[in-house]
């Protein structure tokens, strides 16, 4: 048994009593068994072909502990939002807008489990633990997290900003945040999940999100992952959409030594629309893996996916995007695009866009590209006096820009732009050259 599993088992036996009593306790026990049955993905696991967990399997992670909070302005500044902040894996009432919870259908997970232990099983049918062992692991530790339940026709007045922040003064812990979003018919909301780590934090964050959209519900969901480049991050997201609902998912994977997201979407009704907008940026020895699966199960739904990646140094990224059009799903529109920019010879991308179509009246397209900076554009900029390094950074930023421009929230868009500019060293002088 690996050191990591050992430490997780140890955490499991020592974790605080389940909120919500026996039923939740039983769900946790069962989930832990399921996790242990499957174990960590190994080399023969086809869903993890390009992502090996060796370096983390040897590490140990403790239970979250209450630490002194060293700041009051963690996360994205000046964001007009309902904030809920978790520091080093634990809810921080001092940094959260508790007064806004009740009127907006927001509860902490622990409170929600106490009200309704049935939530322990999640909002959606449980994914196969043989494939989604990290989702099972999250269920086994469920305690910290947020439940948002929007009544029909309700509109969340401000975005819900969920910040999971790791301080460098903290220990290397395993945390398992759990976010459940149930949107009633015709409701409207925007939710920002932000996983952020200070430099050199090296914990394991294993987040899970479930989204259930009733007919006509609209949700803009941001997943922003800016963990430190020594951290280990796994994010699972499962969504189900009824007819005429609209889900926009922005997935920005920017941090982590090793980060993996699994996102799965079930389009269950006519007129359902799904937009997947993704960006990953890896440098140094980072490894980021994004898996998406879109199931078109009913006729007349559409999905549009655009994921872009920028890879530098000796970093590696994996993109596996699959759209399945089931036999029932006539008049499906599904597009999928994955473009990658390789900035160094040492970087590596494995990209697998997959379309499986079992219906005949569909409009589908997919494609993946791997390229380098456009030498013509580079030369053009240089002839205008822009130095080589700046010109490279500028064009790199321009590559990411379409994805960034799709972020509707302007404060967020600026924050991401700033992050990218900080990551592209020569951008500092040229930030006003970009069109945002």
């Amino acid at each position: 048994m690996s050191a990591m599993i050992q430490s997780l088992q140890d955490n499991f036996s020592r974790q605080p009593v389940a909120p919500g009593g026996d039923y939740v306790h039983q769900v946790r026990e069962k989930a832990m068994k399921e996790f242990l049955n499957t174990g960590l993905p190994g080399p023969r696991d086809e869903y993890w072909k390009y992502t090996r967990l060796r370096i983390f399997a040897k590490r140990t992670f403790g239970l979250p502990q209450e630490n002194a909070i060293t700041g009051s302005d963690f996360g994205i500044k000046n964001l007009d939002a309902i904030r809920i902040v978790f520091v080093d894996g634990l809810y921080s009432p001092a940094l959260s807008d508790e007064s806004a919870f009740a009127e907006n259908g927001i509860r902490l997970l622990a409170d929600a489990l106490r009200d309704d232990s049935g939530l322990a099983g999640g909002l959606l049918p449980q994914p196969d633990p043989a494939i989604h062992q990290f989702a099972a692991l999250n269920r086994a530790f469920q305690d910290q997290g947020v439940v948002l339940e929007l009544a029909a026709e309700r509109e969340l007045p401000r975005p819900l900003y969920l910040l999971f922040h790791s301080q460098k003064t903290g220990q290397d812990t395993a945390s398992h945040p759990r976010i459940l979003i149930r949107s009633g018919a015709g409701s409207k909301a925007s939710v920002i999940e932000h996983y952020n780590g200070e430099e050199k934090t090296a914990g394991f964050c294993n987040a899970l999100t479930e989204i259930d959209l009733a007919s006509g519900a609209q949700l803009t969901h941001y997943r922003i992952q800016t963990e430190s480049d020594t951290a280990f991050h796994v994010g699972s997201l499962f969504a189900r959409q009824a007819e005429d609902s609209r889900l926009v998912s922005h997935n920005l994977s920017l941090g982590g030594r090793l980060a993996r997201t699994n996102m799965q979407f079930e389009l269950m009704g006519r007129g359902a629309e799904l937009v997947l907008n993704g960006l990953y940026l890896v440098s140094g020895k980072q490894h980021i893996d994004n898996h998406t699966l879109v199931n078109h199960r009913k006729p007349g739904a559409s999905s549009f996916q655009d994921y872009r990646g920028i890879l530098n140094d000796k970093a590696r990224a994996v993109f596996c995007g699959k759209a399945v059009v089931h036999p029932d799903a006539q008049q499906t529109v599904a597009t999928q695009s994955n473009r990658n920019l390789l900035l160094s010879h040492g970087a590596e991308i494995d990209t697998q866009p997959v379309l499986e179509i079992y219906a005949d009246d569909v409009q589908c397209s997919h494609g993946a590209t791997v390229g380098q900076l456009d030498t013509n554009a580079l030369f053009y900029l240089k002839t205008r006096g822009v130095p080589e390094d700046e010109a490279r950074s500028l064009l790199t930023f321009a590559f990411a820009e379409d994805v960034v421009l799709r972020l509707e929230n302007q404060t967020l868009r600026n924050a991401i732009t700033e992050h990218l500019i900080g990551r592209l060293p020569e951008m500092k002088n040229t930030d006003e050259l970009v069109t945002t």
Partner: protein
Amino acid sequence: MSKNNILLSINKLSVSIDDKPILRDLSLQVAAGEVHAIMGPNGSGKSTLAQVLAGREGYEVSGEVSYLGEDLLDLSPEERAWRGLFLAFQYPVEIPGVNNVYLLKAALNAQRKYRGEAPLDAFEFLTVIQEKMKLMQIDESFLNRSVNAGFSGCEKKRNEILQMVVLEPRLAVLDETDSGLDIDAMKIVANGVNTMRDPERAIVLVTHYQRLLDYIKPDKVHVLADGQIVRSGGPELALKLEEKGYDWLRQEAVSA
């Protein structure tokens, strides 16, 4: 012509790509205050000359090029730009995501920095650019678009000339800036070029059409064929080419 008046001196320049010779032993002197026109058949090497002068890599180059007394071939493209060399591209490059007007500002300030001048702030720059845009009859909406992205052929050419009049180069090389322009647009472009004429500056125009030279009177006209300058003369040479085509020169070369 006194020696220290020479801005650009090309001496026996040979250029090839993958062992395929494109320019052969080409020599050309351009003095301050002059306008030179380079004409010649398709594929004769005009753009290659322009691109090599601007510093494009990927060619095997021999010979000497001096610009303002420095070895031009030793400088990077950006260093050439800072020293006042400007190339208007035959095919301007589209750069989605890079802002047109800010690129211009960065370009201008990079030059100013090289000359030890203070950078223009946003307001000062706007004053400069607005005047130049009026001159080039370019719409303000242009300011916030990405460099050449989605521009029509004519807009791209005008954008090149706008860049030129803002940057006020010592040596401007214009590669077929007149191609694809209607007569009105050509007059605007010619007007932009003429405002640049100055005893301190020089302009090299690559063109296929005598018509441009009705608006911009050249001091010298050269014919480039098969990688060599086969004939040089005054403006009358362009008129003769218009009338007789290039075959006339080829035949002369054969019979000589």
